[in-house]
C-alpha cells in the first residue's frame, strides 16, 4: 500500500487583483511531498514559487490576493477549508516557513530567547522555565555557538548566518512535519549558504522534517533535493527526479535555464562559450492569457503554442513536462516528490 503523501497540492490557483486586471500568480499547480521528502521548487523571480509557499500556509489572504481554487491536502486534510484559528494552530507547529531576509526576519526589539519562548508557549502548554529549556535545545539543534549566551542576545548582535540559524530554530522549535524554506540562503554569503543548506539537510535526515525548498539556484536543488519542480509564470512546466531533470531536461525553458548555468570545464573556457541567455523577460500572466506562457520566448514555439493550452506529458519515473512539442509519448503524468 502506498503511503499517503504529507502534502498534496492539487490545482492550486492564486490570483492577485491589480489595477490592470487579475494576475494569475499561481495557475493550477499540482505537486506532492512525501513524509521526510524534499521537493525543490525553482523558477525566476515572479514565477509564483513564493506565492505557492505562502498560499499553502494561507498567508496571502489580504485585500488583493485570493486563492481561487484547488486543494492543499496536508495529512489528508484540506487547509483551504480550515478556519483562521485552525490555520494559526497549524502555522509554526505543523508547518513552518523560513524566509529569504535573514537580516530582517527577526523582531529587532525582542531577545532571541524571548522570541523562541513566545513561540513555544504559543503552541505548547508549558511553563516559562520548560519553554526556556526547549528554546536552548532549539538553538543547540541549529548549531549556534554559545547557545546559552545567544538566548539573551538581540538580533542585531548576531551575524547574518547566525540570524538565519535562529530563524530556522524558531521554525523547528515546535517540531513541524513540513518546513517551507523560501530562498533561505539568498541573502547570505556564499560560504554561509553552504552551511545553512547542510543544516537543513541534517534537519531533514535526523528529524524527518519534510522540506519544500523554494529557490532560484539550481546548485541548491542539485545539492539537496530528490525531486524538483520548475515553475514558470505560475505553472509547473517540468517536474521529476532531480538528476533526470537537470541532466536531460525536456521543457525548452528548463533547457534554456540549464544552458544559462555557468560550468567550469577542464581545460578552461573557450571564447566561443558565451553564457546562454533566454531572450525576453518572464511574463505576468493575466486572466485572459491563452496558450503556453513561455511561447513568446521559446525557440521551439509553433503556432498552436500561443493559442492552445499545453498538455502535460509524462515520461518515465514521474518525470513530466508541460509542452506541445513533446507530444508523441504517453499522456498525463503526475508531479511528485
Amino acid at each position, binding site marked *: 500500500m502506498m503511503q499517503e503523501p504529507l502534502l498534496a497540492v492539487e490545482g492550486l490557483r492564486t490570483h492577485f487583483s491589480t489595477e490592470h486586471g487579475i494576475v494569475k500568480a499561481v495557475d493550477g499547480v499540482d505537486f506532492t511531498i512525501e513524509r521526510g521528502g524534499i521537493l525543490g521548487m525553482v523558477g525566476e523571480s515572479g514565477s509564483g514559487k513564493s506565492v505557492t509557499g505562502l498560499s499553502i500556509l494561507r498567508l496571502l489572504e489580504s485585500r488583493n490576493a485570493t486563492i481561487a481554487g484547488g486543494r492543499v491536502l496536508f495529512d489528508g486534510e484540506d487547509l483551504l477549508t480550515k478556519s483562521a484559528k485552525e*490555520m*494559526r494552530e497549524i502555522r*509554526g507547529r505543523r508547518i*513552518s516557513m523560513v524566509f529569504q531576509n535573514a537580516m530582517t526576519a527577526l*523582531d*529587532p526589539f*525582542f531577545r532571541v530567547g524571548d522570541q523562541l519562548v513566545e513561540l513555544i508557549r*504559543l*503552541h505548547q502548554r508549558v511553563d516559562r522555565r520548560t519553554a526556556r529549556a526547549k528554546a536552548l535545545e532549539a538553538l543547540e539543534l541549529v548549531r549556534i555557538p554559545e547557545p546559552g549566551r545567544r538566548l539573551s542576545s538581540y538580533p542585531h548582535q548576531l551575524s547574518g548566518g547566525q540570524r538565519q540559524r535562529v530563524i530556522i530554530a524558531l*521554525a523547528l522549535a515546535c517540531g513541524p512535519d513540513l518546513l517551507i524554506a523560501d530562498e533561505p540562503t539568498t541573502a547570505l554569503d556564499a560560504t554561509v549558504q553552504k552551511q545553512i543548506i547542510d543544516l537543513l539537510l541534517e534537519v531533514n535526515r535526523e528529524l524527518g522534517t519534510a522540506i519544500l525548498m523554494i529557490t532560484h539556484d539550481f546548485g541548491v536543488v542539485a545539492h539537496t533535493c530528490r525531486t524538483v519542480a520548475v515553475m514558470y509564470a505560475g505553472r509547473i512546466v517540468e517536474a521529476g527526479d532531480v538528476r533526470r531533470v537537470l541532466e536531460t531536461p525536456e521543457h525548452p525553458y528548463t533547457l534554456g535555464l540549464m544552458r544559462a548555468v555557468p560550468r567550469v570545464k577542464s581545460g578552461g573556457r573557450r571564447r566561443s562559450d558565451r553564457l546562454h541567455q533566454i531572450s525576453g523577460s518572464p511574463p505576468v500572466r493575466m486572466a485572459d492569457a491563452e496558450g503556453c506562457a513561455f511561447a513568446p520566448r521559446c525557440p521551439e514555439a509553433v503556432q498552436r503554442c500561443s493559442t492552445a493550452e499545453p498538455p502535460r506529458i509524462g515520461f518515465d519515473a514521474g518525470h513530466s513536462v508541460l509542452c506541445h512539442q513533446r507530444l508523441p509519448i504517453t499522456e498525463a503524468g503526475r508531479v511528485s516528490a
Partner: protein
Amino acid sequence: MIGFLLRRLGWTVLILIGVSVLVFLLMQLVPGDPVRTMLGMAATGERVEEVRHQLGLDRSLPIQYLDYVAGVLHGELGQSLVLSQPVSSILFPKLLNTVILSAGSLLICLLVGIPLGVLAGARQYSLFDRGSMFLSLAGASVPVYWAALVIVSIFALQLGWFPTSGMYDTRNPGGLADVLHHLVLPAAAAAVVPTAVIARMARGTMVEALQGDHVRMLRASGVPERSVIWRHALRGIMPPVVNIVGLQVGYLLGGIIFVEVVFNWPGLGGQLYTSITAGDMPLIQSGVLFIALVFVLVNLITDVSVALLDPRTRKAA
C-alpha cells in the same frame, strides 16, 4: 550610552544658555523704558536715574546679563512691574497649574492618539481607517482657540456636562475631583491638534511595521494578529511615536496659552497673556524662560527615551 547621555546633556546646557541670552535681549529690544513704566510719567529725571542705578540698569549689557543669570540661578526672577510682587511667587503656582493642564492634555493625546493610529494602521483602507484619518486631518487643521470655543459651546453651554471656565468651583472649591472636572474641557481642547498628529504618525508607522519581514515571520509562526499588532508591531513603532509625542508637547505648550485664556485657567499662559498686554517685562521674560526650559527638558527626556527604547542604540551609543 553614557557617552550619548553626556553629549546630549552638554547640548541641553548650550541650548539653555542660548535661550537665556535671547530672553535677556528680549527685554532690551522692547520699546519704552522699564523704569519709566514702573515710576510713571510724573517721576523726576533724578528719581529715574536713581532707580535705574538701584536696578543695575546703568551697567553694560554683558554685566547685566551675568547679573540676570546669577539671579535666575538663585531663583531670583525680579519684581513684577505691575503687581509689585516677586516674579517667582506669581509664576511658580501658575507654572504648576499649567503643568497639570499639560499633563491632562498629554494623557488624552496618548490614550486617544496612539490606539486610534494603531487600529487605523492595522486595518489599512478600512472604513474605520478612512473615517479616523479624515477626522484626524480635520483635527490637525483646526486652530486651537477655535476648537476651544466649539468645545465650550457644545459640552459646557449646551450639554452642561462640564464647567465653562476656571480650575475650581468658586462656590464650593476643593478636592481632586473638582480639579479633574474642570480639567476635562481645556485639556481636550489643547489635545485636539497633537492627538490628530500623533494618530496620523502612529498609523503611518504601523502600516509600515506590519509590512516588515519579522511580522510576516510571526504570522507564519501562528502568532495571533492581536499579539502581532499590540505586542510586536507596537513595540517597534514606539521610538518614532515617542519622538513625535515629544515634538507635540512643544506644540501643546504653545496651544495652552490660548486654551488658558479661553477657559480662564489660572496658568502660565493666561498670566503671560495678561502680562504681555500690560507690558510687564520681567514676568514675560521669566514666563518665556519657563516655557523654554520645559520644552528643552521634554526634548531631553524624549531623546533619551528613544535611545533607551531601541536595543540597537542602547548598547552601541
